[in-house]
């Protein structure tokens, strides 16, 4: 808490400097006077109403009693209502477009309901403009600057938070990071002037940990609530209580699907406002019989559409990166043949998935190619996407949707403690959403690659919310920190199975974050300060005890970013050779550390991008790791955790790191099964194999792993060898042999204990 306030003061100072800059722009007026948002830190001279000249500004605006007319007039300018600066011509042209958006038609109705009630459920389909416009409508009525508050708008995805904030800053004719900013994990682009903050739902949850009543905000908008992310669900549970304590806080739940009545019911029958989407009818086709191979069927369908259907772009839903890239290649080849034979126009194929670099993602907005010859058959683009294109992205021009009915979904099962992404059938709601994508520009067609009976009988109604499919250890720690004591009766919209909570509590207890009574320990309180999984947080916090906090800090950062190794399908061998350069015989974590140290070397930093490219490493991921490391380092310094390293010459250098790893990951250990290749996980007793990507060179009887991946085989990924005596030494609670089932693992551990005792006895005798 104190740390937060301190930070704000610091930033205030920084902003004053910035203000001097604006003054020197020759505006003539003092920025403090022209910017109503600065009023709250300028006590001597409160901003008064009539200082904006003839520019309109926010004259006569009374909080929660404004009208659409007033707001429109203020938007028309000529000066920016929030900064007082003259509005640009770009602003004006954007304003015109904004007023064409479907939500604009209902601004009046919205305002009325917003003013009347504390909680409001707002339904608007993707493309209605709700994400960009509603927060602005709110600004003109909530006037957060008058009370030194902010309006928050949450997004499930980091990318969305960033790009929407950028867009809205443009719409409001302000600089991103000033009046409009964003805040995502490991990146805060807001300032003291910020009145509208786009943020990930996870970030708002973290803020709530420090400020249980979220006092910085006057209105909170939970956007894309239909996606039911873990953080959104927890936030809804929290805010349901906060609104009772804070009558001045307004809450808007925004959803893109019509099943909003569930939200209404949950929030004590809050009023609902729906903006009809601008959609065209979509004709849905089913296959007569189930498909043997949904990918092949999808490719066939795409090519058939391309060859026979009139103009219009195609959107194909597949499940993951590899599948998508493969499909793109195949469609490309076939389509070239088609157009060469004169059967069709040119076809451009774009992949779309989360881990694709942003520049590549942008390509999907390129217009379709022109006909090969003037007057020839029209060109077409085909986007092959994961379910990101289902709700969160609006791509115009899509007329044909091909839906095989699968997506990759996170699954967690507390019984075997595995959290994995598995290809699973989508829900009916998802299927409808997908079909809807075909009707954005004109009437469209949706080809479902399953039978109508299968649609009715096999698909579940709604996708399971994330909270039912996640490990809750992190969430439980957050909730405890938030002061929610009784987790059993915490009012969630869809409570998970009790075993999920049971397992989370148990894990946190073993990590010593919760005591046997379920109360937060000092370590737990400290761990909750880090935006990390509890195991990683505990590893980081305890790392000074192993004299390697610098290294563990780097490693934690590396484990928090996407895969750093790049292995392009066309160049696998070369990529593996390069990885071999960094390989550490004791395992992947140490190998990653080698990579990071090499990346930070002078040689690499001379031209890091090229260096990464040459070594088949992801520059983006490493850069991100750098950033994450810096953020975590700040928290460590704030919490007075010492940063240190064992001298590299010391033969215990690597052993210390391995021991520190055990301190966080002692619950993710596997022992080799006999002499074979397979391993058995400790306690859960699952048979697993080392993931093919591992570099572990030594014959290792015991390993810790970062991930248990469930595919057709059970794999453990990112492994490092450890010694069994470390396990017993570092986590005696978890390795209490009385709790173990009889078997090979228990025997092996028993031997270690016996050896220990013998040694001790011998020493005692001497």
């Amino acid at each position, binding site marked *: 808490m104190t740390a937060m306030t301190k930070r704000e003061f610091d930033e205030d100072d920084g902003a004053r400097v910035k203000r001097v800059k604006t003054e020197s722009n020759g505006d003539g007026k003092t920025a403090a006077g022209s910017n109503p948002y600065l009023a709250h830190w300028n006590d001597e001279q409160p901003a008064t109403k009539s200082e904006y000249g003839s520019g309109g500004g926010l004259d006569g605006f009374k909080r929660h009693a404004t009208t659409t007319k007033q707001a429109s007039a203020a938007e028309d300018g000529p000066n920016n209502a929030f900064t007082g600066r003259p509005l640009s011509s770009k602003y004006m042209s954007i304003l015109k477009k904004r007023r064409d958006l479907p939500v604009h038609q209902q601004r009046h109705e919205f305002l009325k309901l917003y003013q009347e009630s504390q909680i409001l459920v707002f339904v608007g389909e993707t493309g209605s403009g709700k994400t960009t416009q509603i927060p602005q409508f709110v600004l003109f009525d909530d006037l957060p600057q008058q009370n030194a508050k902010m309006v928050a708008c949450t997004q499930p995805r980091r990318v969305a938070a960033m790009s929407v904030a950028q867009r809205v800053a443009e719409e409001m004719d302000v600089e991103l990071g000033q009046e409009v900013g964003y805040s995502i994990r490991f990146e805060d682009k807001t300032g003291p002037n910020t009145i509208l903050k786009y943020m990930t739902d996870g970030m708002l949850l973290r803020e709530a940990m420090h400020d249980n009543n979220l006092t910085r905000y006057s209105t909170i908008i939970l956007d894309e609530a239909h996606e039911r992310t873990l953080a959104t669900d927890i936030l809804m549970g929290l805010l349901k209580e906060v609104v009772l304590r804070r009558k001045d806080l307004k809450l808007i739940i925004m959803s893109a699907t019509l099943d909003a009545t569930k939200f209404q019911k949950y929030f004590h029958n809050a009023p609902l406002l729906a903006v009809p989407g601008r959609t065209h009818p979509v004709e849905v086709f089913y*296959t007569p*019989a*189930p*498909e*043997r*191979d*949904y990918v*092949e*069927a999808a490719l066939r369908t795409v090519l058939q559409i391309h060859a026979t259907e009139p103009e219009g772009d195609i959107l194909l839903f597949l499940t993951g990166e590899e599948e998508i890239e493969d499909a793109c290649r195949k469609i490309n080849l076939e389509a070239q043949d088609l157009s060469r034979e004169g059967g069709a126009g040119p076809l451009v194929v774009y992949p779309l998935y989360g881990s694709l670099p942003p520049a590549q993602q942008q390509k999907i907005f390129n217009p379709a190619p022109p006909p090969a010859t003037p007057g020839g058959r029209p060109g077409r683009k085909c986007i092959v996407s994961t379910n990101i294109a289902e709700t969160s992205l609006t791509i115009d021009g899509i007329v044909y949707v091909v839906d095989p*009915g*699968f997506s990759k979904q996170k699954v967690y*099962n*507390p*019984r075997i403690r595995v959290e994995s992404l*598995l*290809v*699973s059938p989508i829900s009916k709601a998802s299927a409808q959403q997908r079909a809807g994508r075909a009707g954005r520009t004109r009437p469209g067609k949706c080809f479902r*690659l*399953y*039978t109508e*009976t*299968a649609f009715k009988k*096999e698909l579940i109604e709604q996708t*399971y919310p994330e909270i*039912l*499919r996640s490990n809750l250890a992190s969430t439980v720690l957050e909730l405890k920190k938030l002061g929610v004591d*009784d*987790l*059993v*009766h*915490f*009012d*969630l919209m*869809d*409570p*998970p*199975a*009790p*075993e*999920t*909570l*049971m*397992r989370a*509590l*148990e894990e946190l207890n*073993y990590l010593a974050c919760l005591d*046997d009574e*379920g109360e937060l320990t000092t370590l737990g309180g400290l761990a909750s300060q880090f935006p990390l999984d509890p195991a990683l947080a505990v590893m980081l916090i305890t790392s000074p005890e192993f004299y390697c906090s610098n290294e563990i800090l780097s490693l934690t950062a590396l484990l928090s970013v996407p895969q750093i190794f790049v292995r392009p399908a066309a160049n696998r061998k070369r990529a593996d050779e390069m990885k071999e350069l960094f390989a550490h015989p004791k395992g992947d974590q140490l190998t990653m550390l080698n990579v990071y140290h090499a990346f930070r070397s002078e040689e690499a930093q001379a031209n890091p991008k090229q260096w990464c490219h040459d070594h088949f490493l992801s520059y983006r991921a490493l850069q991100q790791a750098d950033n994450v490391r810096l953020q975590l380092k700040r928290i460590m310094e704030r919490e007075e955790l010492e940063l240190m390293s064992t001298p590299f010459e010391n033969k215990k250098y690597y052993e210390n790191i391995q021991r520190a790893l055990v301190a966080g990951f002692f619950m993710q250990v596997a022992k080799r099964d006999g*002499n074979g*290749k397979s391993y058995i996980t400790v306690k859960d007793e*699952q*048979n697993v194999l080392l993931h093919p990507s591992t570099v572990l060179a030594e014959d290792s*009887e015991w390993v810790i792993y970062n991930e248990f991946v*469930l*595919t*057709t*085989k*059970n794999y453990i990924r990112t492994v490092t060898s450890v010694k069994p005596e470390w396990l017993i030494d570092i986590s005696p609670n978890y390795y209490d042999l009385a709790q173990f089932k009889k078997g090979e693992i228990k*025997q092996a551990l028993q*031997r270690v204990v016996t050896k220990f005792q013998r040694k001790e006895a011998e020493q005692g005798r001497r």
Partner: protein
Amino acid sequence: MAQSDEEDDYMNMVFEDAPKGPKHETSLQRAARKRKEGEARARQKTKAEREADEEAAREASLATALPESNKGFKMMAKFGFKQGDTLGQSNDARKEPIRVNVKDDRGGIGLESEKKRKFREQWEEAERLAKRSKEEEGDYLEIRRQEQKEKKAERDLDSAQRTAERLSEKEAEEKDSLESGEKPLKNINVLWRSRARRRVEIKRDKQQRRELNDSIASRLPTLADADDGDDDSKVAQGRDLAPFYTTLENDLDDEDPELAEFEALPVAERLLKLLTFLRDAHQYCLYCGYQYPDAEMEGCPGLTEEDHD
């Protein structure tokens, strides 16, 4: 290095888990047993075995709920949680975690259940057949004998029909020589009508083939006489055939419930009917191969073949 560990391991197991093992084991026996055990341990499991193990362990764990001894359970109990309760405040909260289903192929939605359905059907069919063959169990020879008998009966039926037709026609000719030629099928005795019908069918097939040849020929340009210009005659040719065609077709296409009913009877029964007819109408015995002069049929041992044995 690993080897010595294994040795240790083995020793340990003997002392701990099998203290009451055979005390008097010769060194040879011991060595043999050791070798065997070592081999068993060293043997790498096949991929299939390993995968089966993997899945079995996974399924077993997935089916087992966390026990009340779980530390988390105790913490939850503090807030009044009991086994079987759900979380939160809604009435329809989950009790069980969501099932984990690993998809290991690219089968489309519905394929799995379609396969299951087909499999179930096949299984049911197999079961039904198995049941039937069990009922018919009796030995193979019995079945063969039955088959032979049936075939014989069919042959007998055919010759009986042939004879009956021949005798009837002869009788008809003797009675009224005028009435000959084509008789509508309906007027033929149902006992051998199937023979007549077969003949008509053959005739029609031939007719059709000829017709087809004709029409192909007529369409072939080389065969068409350009000067003649009598297209009409060709049309006429086609038309000429029409009436015959229609009668045939009508005859064949007409429903014949009488015949159908007769044909539906088992061979043995049909044969019996014919044998009876031959005796009653013509004093003929198929097995004697002789037409007796009077209804007494003296010398014929009986109606059936068995009687003639």
